[in-house]
């Protein structure tokens, strides 16, 4: 060994649990590789079972790790080195990270079980499970990594996996466009992450979060306030992209082009959760001076997305807007410094949002089957199977999906005895504690009502009343009746997820989250509702929303709100996309065009140089031709005359040759004899 290569004190040996955790990480990577390369060579059911059982194994291992971890244990090894400079990879196992691991693997397991049936007959099936595995492994990477550098890597890989999965049905033009849009919005936000990473590395010398935490808390490295604020702002900006916050959130509704299980995973556990997760991990980097940005962005996002959901008819997009809105709550929580509340809401939201997506997916699945069967009967339903205006009456035909939906719905709008109520109360309470955030608090409270409104509306249109598609195509009535209930593989995840939304699952106190027992409390839940008035207020607002929706929904006519400019504006994402188009994309293309011309100008300049050189050559050639060559030609002409006169002597006759010889001989004699004188 080289004596100069000393052991870096930063490096830490690995614990046994780390190898288990690494196994959890590498299992989906392995699945990805195996399934990607075997492709269509193995059957659909084999592929599904393999992927699902791997995720099941991961879930069990995660539970084991979570239950084994007591105090945070960290491993750190050198990933690569440049001389004595090491780039380290760290892994932290704490109750926080491992509980997140459990949440992600649990939801992934549900989604896998669900997908086995849901994706069975779909095109391109051979790619679905590998992409899903990639998605999950990247997410686990974010959860476990202790180094921001590594987090960034998995962060981008999550983006890649979402790109592949959103564009899964690549033949649909919209799907390809949505995938590109999602990736580009994320990439734009990621540049902020790159810059933040560079600044952190420059000013702190490491990107290991545990080390950074120690450095900052001990104030051993003094960083200019401006830099510290910029780092925080940049980190927050980058999470706005992944977690779909204003103004980056416009990619999320479009991302509904992907298969429904993907949406469930993306909204519940992986992609949008990643941003919140990173913010919670980097909480100590978020300086006080900029936290208001988080609160305000969260409040604005929550409100705007909720408003957009009011007039939305796409069953999945409504849920997408609700996700954006709920993530806004989490942002607010982080902004107020109550990261545990954010984390709590993240966990509860993961379950009930997955449940919502899967139950809605079950309905869509049925709709899809109705459409397919109609095709068989030569009835072509040229309709959007996601449109809630065409649904209805599924309460009777699909009771399991309905009740699962209702449970998750209750959790989302914040009905007591459901998990969502607890977590939302905690966030609202922490907002209330800071008097400067009274306006955001008001917005958040308003959003609670709006959420209740649009979710009730969706419930009403989807499950209650009559089957409205049958009004257009009467034969569908029969079809709906035929499909009684979904496959058990779809129903089991629905039942499990519905159970997890009950508040007993996390806390025995139905109105207060302080005695949370959910597995091991990952973070101490601070706050909770301090006054009795807050729950009352929020519950009443929720009830108002529900009742309003009930009364409005029954009266709401098909296609009747579109003429108002406000709703048009809302449905166009408040003009954000237009603004992006005008401020970034069109200028980009103009710049590209312009620079291409500039390139041509440079080229022209180079060519002009070449032409000038050629021109000069021609001028020189002309001089050469008329001046120098003229003189030469004259000489040649003279020589030719002399030559031809001599040549007349040399006509091939011996005598001519002799005469020449003799002349020369005579001259030589002349010369020789002169010498003798």
């Amino acid at each position, binding site marked *: 060994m080289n004596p100069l290569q000393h052991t870096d004190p930063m490096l830490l040996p690995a614990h046994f649990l780390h190898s288990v955790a690494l196994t959890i990480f590498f299992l989906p990577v392995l699945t990805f590789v195996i399934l990607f390369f075997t492709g269509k060579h193995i059957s659909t059911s084999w592929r599904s079972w393999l992927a699902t059982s791997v995720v099941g194994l991961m879930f069990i291992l995660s539970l084991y790790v979570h239950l084994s971890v007591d105090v945070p244990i960290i491993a750190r090894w050198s990933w690569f080195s440049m001389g004595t400079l090491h780039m380290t990879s760290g892994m932290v196992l704490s109750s926080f990270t491992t509980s997140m691991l459990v949440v992600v693997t649990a939801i992934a397991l549900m989604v896998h079980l669900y997908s086995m049936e849901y994706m069975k007959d779909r095109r391109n099936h051979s790619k679905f499970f590998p992409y899903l595995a990639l998605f999950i492994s990247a997410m686990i990477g974010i959860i476990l990594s202790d180094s921001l550098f590594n987090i960034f890597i998995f962060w981008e890989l999550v983006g890649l996996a979402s790109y592949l999965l959103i564009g899964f049905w690549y033949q649909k033009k919209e799907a390809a466009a949505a995938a590109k849009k999602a990736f580009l919005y994320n990439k734009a936000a990621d540049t902020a992450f790159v810059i933040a990473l560079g600044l952190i590395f420059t000013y702190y010398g490491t990107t290991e979060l545990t080390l950074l935490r120690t450095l900052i808390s001990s104030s051993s490295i003094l960083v200019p306030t401006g830099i510290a604020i910029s780092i925080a702002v940049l980190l927050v900006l980058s999470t706005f992209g992944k977690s779909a916050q204003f103004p980056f959130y416009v990619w999320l509704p479009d991302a509904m082009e992907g298969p429904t299980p993907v949406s469930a995973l993306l909204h519940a556990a992986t992609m949008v959760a990643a941003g919140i997760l990173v913010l919670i991990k980097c909480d100590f980097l978020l300086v006080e001076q900029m936290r208001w940005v988080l609160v305000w962005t969260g409040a604005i996002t929550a409100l705007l997305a909720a408003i957009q959901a009011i007039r939305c008819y796409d069953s999945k997009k409504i849920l997408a807007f609700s996700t954006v809105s709920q993530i806004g709550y989490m942002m607010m929580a982080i902004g107020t410094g109550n990261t545990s509340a954010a984390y709590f809401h993240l966990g509860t939201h993961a379950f009930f949002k997955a449940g919502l997506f899967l139950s809605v997916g079950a309905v869509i699945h049925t709709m899809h089957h109705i459409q397919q069967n109609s095709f068989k009967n030569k009835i072509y339903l040229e309709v959007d199977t996601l449109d809630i205006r065409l649904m209805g009456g599924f309460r009777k035909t699909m009771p399991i999906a309905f009740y699962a939906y209702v449970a998750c719905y209750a959790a989302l709008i914040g009905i007591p005895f459901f998990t969502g109520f607890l977590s939302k109360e905690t966030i609202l309470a922490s907002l209330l504690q800071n008097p400067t955030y009274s306006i955001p608090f008001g917005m958040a409270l308003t959003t609670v009502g709006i959420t209740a409104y649009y979710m009730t509306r969706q419930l009403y249109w989807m499950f209650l009343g009559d089957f409205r598609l049958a009004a257009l195509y009467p034969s569908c009535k029969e079809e709906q009746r035929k499909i009684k209930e979904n496959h058990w593989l779809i129903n089991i995840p629905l039942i499990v997820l519905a159970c997890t939304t009950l508040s007993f699952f996390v806390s025995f106190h139905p109105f207060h989250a302080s005695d949370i027992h959910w597995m091991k409390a990952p973070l101490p839940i601070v706050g909770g509702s301090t006054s009795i008035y807050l729950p009352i207020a929020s519950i009443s607002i929720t009830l108002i929303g529900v009742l309003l929706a009930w009364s409005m929904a029954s009266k709401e006519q098909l296609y009747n709100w579109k003429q108002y400019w406000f709703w048009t504006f809302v449905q166009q994402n408040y003009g954000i996309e237009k603004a992006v188009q005008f401020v970034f994309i069109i200028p980009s293309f103009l710049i590209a065009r312009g620079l291409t011309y500039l390139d041509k100008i440079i080229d022209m300049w180079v060519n002009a140089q070449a032409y000038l050189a050629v021109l000069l050559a021609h001028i020189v050639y002309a001089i050469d031709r008329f001046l120098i060559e003229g003189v030469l030609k004259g000489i040649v002409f003279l020589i030719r005359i002399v030559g031809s006169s001599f040549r007349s002597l040399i006509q091939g006759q011996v005598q001519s040759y002799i005469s020449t010889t003799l002349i020369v001989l*005579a001259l030589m*004699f002349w010369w020789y004899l002169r010498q003798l*004188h």
Partner: protein
Amino acid sequence: MSNILFFFIFFSVQTIGSAVVILFTRNVMYAVTALLSSLLGVAALFVLAGADVLGVIQIIVYIGGVLVLTLFGVMYTYQSPKRYQESIPHKKSVFILIPLLFVLVLLVQALPLLPMIDDPYQHASKVEVTGMLWLTEYLPIFEWIGFLLLVVLIGAGWIGSTLVQEDKSKGEQV
């Protein structure tokens, strides 16, 4: 003017005159005859210069050998009187300048260089000395010359023989 000088002039005129005849005649036979006269004149000039032996050799070799050979040549290449009669093209008269150039060189450059030789032994015979030198000092050279002559004769014979062979082959073909 001594007798010798008279003879000298006489034979000189004979030699040069005959040469002039060769230059101008159109008849080859006349030319051969004129050549004979010219060579005889040269032989006489040799004798006048005290080279008796050379004069004899001149007559034997030239008149006996070369001239006869030339006559054979004339006979062999005889075509027709028309072709036989040739004319000198006017264009070629320019060539006369070239010999004159040599004469000029001689007169202007060479003659002034000549030493005036005083002859102590007026007209003493050189025959004896010639014989002695032939067989002593110049013997190897003459051996070589003889050998050269042999080679030349063989060569000439060979050249001639190819002609004969060609004739034969032609005859056979016909």
